[in-house]
């Protein structure tokens, strides 16, 4: 007897039957929106033009690919999600979507998004989209997330690929500038997440996920956040001197990184007692700045490419 036949027989609807919104939630829409933004920037700043409709649909397939990897992640992580308070109400742990359905949706959308990106743009972009889905779903979710405390760094790499895929969709290639966009998000993710981890009580330890704050301690997390912030500043300034940037990008990058480094430095100098005393003001400040940082930095690349006097 299936759930459908059971429902027909009893004439009652299950209170927790999956709706379209649940399947949408499986695709991790917030993660998708970040992919859309960064992939769009990659596509816009790449040299040469792309047909507007082909560009827009390429972004759609990249977003769908990101959604597919989200669904595969939720399918594999259902056991973890059941344990943590933050994720307990997700479609699979709450019982609204069957794990097999999530897996099928993830696999179907993976094949669809990669194939359609190949047909719409080119197979270089399609290859990198396929690689990104594989990296996030298999390398990160299934393997390294549960085994190493550097999972934030590795997961961040998967989230860093969309601008390069956008660039590849426009040009068919992945030159240094495209990799610098990857590097920027890659270096940005750890301090962004660790600042959050220092002021939000994340119950990863209950799910036995080795997070840096638990395995290496909160002081080491503060130190690592500063180190990665320095790396971020280096990549950012480097990018400003390539064909991606120009005087405007350099000026914006200097301000963004200056404030970011000041926040990371202040966060490193503090103890947990200091942090508790002012309700994690510095950690919250750095986290908020990191959000503005990524948006402003990627936006200035687009502005630099669009203005007539932009670039070096």
């Amino acid at each position, binding site marked *: 007897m299936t759930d*459908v036949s059971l*429902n*027909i027989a009893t*004439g009652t*609807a299950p209170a927790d*039957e*999956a*709706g*379209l919104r649940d399947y949408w939630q499986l695709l991790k829409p917030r993660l998708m929106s970040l992919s859309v933004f960064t992939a769009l920037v990659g596509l816009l700043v790449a040299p040469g033009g792309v*047909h507007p*409709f*082909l560009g827009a*649909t390429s972004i*759609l397939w990249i977003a769908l690919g990101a959604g597919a990897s989200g669904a595969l992640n939720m399918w594999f992580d259902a056991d973890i999600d059941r344990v943590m308070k933050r994720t307990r109400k997700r479609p699979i742990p709450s019982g609204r979507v069957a794990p097999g359905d999530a897996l099928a949706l993830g696999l179907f959308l993976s094949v669809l998004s990669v194939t359609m990106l190949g*047909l*719409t743009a080119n197979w270089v972009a399609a290859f990198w989209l396929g690689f990104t889905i594989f990296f996030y779903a298999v390398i990160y979710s299934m393997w390294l997330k549960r085994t190493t405390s550097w999972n934030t760094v590795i997961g961040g790499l998967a989230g860093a690929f969309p601008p390069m895929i956008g660039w590849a969709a426009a040009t068919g290639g992945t030159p240094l500038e495209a990799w610098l966009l990857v590097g920027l998000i890659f270096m940005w993710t750890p301090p962004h997440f660790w600042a959050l981890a220092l002021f939000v009580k994340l119950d990863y330890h209950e799910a036995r996920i080795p997070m840096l704050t638990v395995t290496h301690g909160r002081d080491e997390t503060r130190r690592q956040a500063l180190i990665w912030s320095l790396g971020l500043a280096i990549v950012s300034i480097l990018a400003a001197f390539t064909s991606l940037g120009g005087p405007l990008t350099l000026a914006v990058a200097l301000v963004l990184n200056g404030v970011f480094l000041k926040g990371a430095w202040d966060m490193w100098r503090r103890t947990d007692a200091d942090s508790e005393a002012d309700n994690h003001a510095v950690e919250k400040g750095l986290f908020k700045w990191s959000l503005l940082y990524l948006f402003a930095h990627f936006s200035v690349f687009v502005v630099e490419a669009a203005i007539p006097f932009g670039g070096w």
Partner: protein
Amino acid sequence: MHRDSEVHIRRRGRNFGVLGVLLAFIVIVFGVTLAKIQTGGFSEGFDHVARPGLVPGQTEEVAE
């Protein structure tokens, strides 16, 4: 008189949602086809002969 079963009534919203997604997919594929034709991406219709774009030195000869 035909009456929809309870399960059809209950899942109407979801089914219409799937219909909307499928229709959107058709529109997108049609739009991509038109855009590809406009940009010449798929328009090298050289059946049973090597595509000039793939043969070194051939592009110039074709252009002449």
